[in-house]
């Protein structure tokens, strides 16, 4: 039986941890909302976007989801507001605003 | 009563003193003995003096040190007599076995103070005659077997034939030469 690692936290006694701190799941970083860390927030202007998709692979946090070859808004649960997307966009389709309000 | 003999081999890197010690361990093992065969390692190069050892015993062998008071010493290269103290610790009732065309008296003259038995065997000549090359191992092995009386002649030869057949499976032509070297040596020492 695999330990349910979602029940492990900083209060868990040592006997409750997995051996070698093994993580019994894949892609677990999605459960960590790094969007909380953001103090600058990108704003997407769909009218200026030409769907060149330069931005998506440049995002270090995979927070620009692409569906059917097109991007829409941001995954604000994970966007840390680094601003790389706004920097690489040739069409000024993204701008950075202070604060973490969406 | 525990019966054990200890043998020290002196040779030069590449001459096969280690191989001879391992061969002796092999053949004694085949006769149900407890054996040890091991070289003393250093930064060996071709031609540098090397030492190898054998313990052959009726009982299991536990000691793992080198041998300082051997019953027998085998010298694969007589030029070592000038640079190495080959008789160091050699028991008076034992023997020094030297690969040389010289007589035992001539060798004794080079070893002032040594009063033990000396047996000489021209292993080089035997090897060149039987194998066409200077591989003195088989001859030295037979000399040690003959002098120590460790193994009876016929059984020893039979065992060695099987061992050579295995060792030289890919060049069976050298088996006869090696067998001949053993026999010539046993005849010479008998």
């Amino acid at each position, binding site marked *: 039986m695999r330990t349910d690692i979602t029940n492990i936290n*900083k209060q868990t006694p040592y006997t409750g941890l997995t051996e070698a701190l093994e993580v019994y799941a894949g892609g*677990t970083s999605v459960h960590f909302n790094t969007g909380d860390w953001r103090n600058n927030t990108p704003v997407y202007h769909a009218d200026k976007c030409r769907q060149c998709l330069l931005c998506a692979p440049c995002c270090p946090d995979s927070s620009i989801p692409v569906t059917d070859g097109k991007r829409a808004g941001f995954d604000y649960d994970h966007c840390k507001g680094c601003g790389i997307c706004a920097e690489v966009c040739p069409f000024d389709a993204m701008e950075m605003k202070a604060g973490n309000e969406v | 009563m525990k019966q054990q003999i200890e043998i020290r081999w002196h040779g030069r890197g590449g001459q096969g003193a280690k191989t001879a010690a391992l061969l002796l361990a092999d053949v004694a093992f085949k006769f149900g003995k407890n054996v040890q065969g091991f070289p003393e390692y250093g930064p060996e190069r071709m031609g540098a003096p090397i030492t190898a050892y054998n313990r052959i015993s009726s009982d299991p062998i536990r000691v793992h040190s080198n041998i300082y008071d051997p019953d027998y010493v085998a010298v694969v290269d007589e030029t070592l007599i000038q640079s190495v103290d080959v008789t160091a610790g050699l028991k008076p009732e034992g023997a020094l076995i030297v690969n040389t065309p010289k007589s035992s008296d001539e060798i004794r003259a080079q070893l002032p103070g040594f009063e033990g038995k000396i047996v000489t065997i021209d292993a080089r000549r035997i090897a060149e005659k039987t194998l066409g090359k200077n591989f003195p191992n088989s001859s030295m092995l037979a000399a040690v077997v003959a002098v120590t009386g460790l193994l009876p002649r016929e059984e020893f030869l039979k065992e060695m034939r099987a061992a050579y057949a295995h060792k030289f499976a890919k060049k069976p032509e050298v088996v006869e030469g090696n067998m001949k070297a053993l026999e010539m040596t046993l005849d010479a020492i008998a």
Partner: protein
Amino acid sequence: MSMNENTNQNTIVEAIPERMSGNEAVAYAIRQVNPDVMPAFPITPSTEIPQMVSTYISNGQLDTEFIPVESEHSAMSAAIGAEAAGARTMTATSSAGLALMWEELLLAASNRLPIALTLVNRTLSGPININCDHSDGMGARDTGWIQIYAENNQEAYDNYIQAFRIAEHKDVRLPIMICQDGFITSHAVQNLYLLPDEAVKDFVGTYEPEEYLLKPHQPMALGPYSETDYVMEAKKNQLDAMNRSRQVILDVADEFAQMSGRSYGFFEEYRTDDADYIMLLMGSAAGTAKDAVDELREAGIKAGVIKLRVFRPFPEKELAKALSGCKACAILDRCESYNGNSGVLGSEVTAGLYRAGVQIRTLNRIYGLGGRDFTVDSAKSVFEELTNWMDGGEEPLQNEYIGLRR
């Protein structure tokens, strides 16, 4: 406990008499165990082991995946990867090779990967030297590996066959080092008894880890970054596993004894029952010390030997108990530790005695560095120091080197 005696009574399997060097014996055991993966880089005096394994593979006698790597750092890295993927993995090394694995040794242990490493003990420079002492193995004492030492080729063979059963046990899951003395046993041909291939195969069994990286449809991550909040808890679990290995080591030894007729424990006690004077040491020198004990016994001196087999986990309580009846114990180390208690054994044995309240006299001695020969006379000289001391002489100077030229 009696080791090395093949009584061959009540044993299940046939004992096959052979003569082999220690390296040959371990390579033979590897062929019989047939591990899945062996990454290795050659270094004297363990070089023959990967060499012989490669020969077995090229002769079609072994289907182990041999990975020729460019260094020991890579050898242990590859071993970690292979073991984590779910493969039974082993490697071999000596001296500087083990030192170059240093970082990975700790990773293998903390990631709970039951890799078997056969260590052919050689000194760590300097002065640069190729011969035996225990400075390599003792240097890795705090890496979290189980360490088992052998007196001779028989024990190196037997220990190797028990290794995977100990390391892979679900209560343990720790890497294991099977150690033997470089050249002294690794290159010395001696008699031993082998086990039939089938018996070894049945004894070792197949490797079926519960969790591994290549488990289909069951993704997992291993070796994650651990925040400070988790490190001590993880380390405590690792320590508990090491402690649980004590019982597993004894259980596996029992099962091995039933099969082979050869018994093993944490240590061997030789003529210690009524001994006044005990010499405690590891490796090939223990055999030499036993011969010294027999000679001393004939002269009426009650001498005995304790040969430590399992160095990690360290059996401090058992050793203290075994020593509690003697007057004085000489603790011999084949490495220097620069700590005022000679080597590692000097420190750990005396600490164990103190904790157990055993108030015997101890004498620390260092021997055999860089292959310096340890003879029956060497052993007797140490016993003589003990007897002189107990007969009312002055306490000998501690931490001296045996056979040092002055």
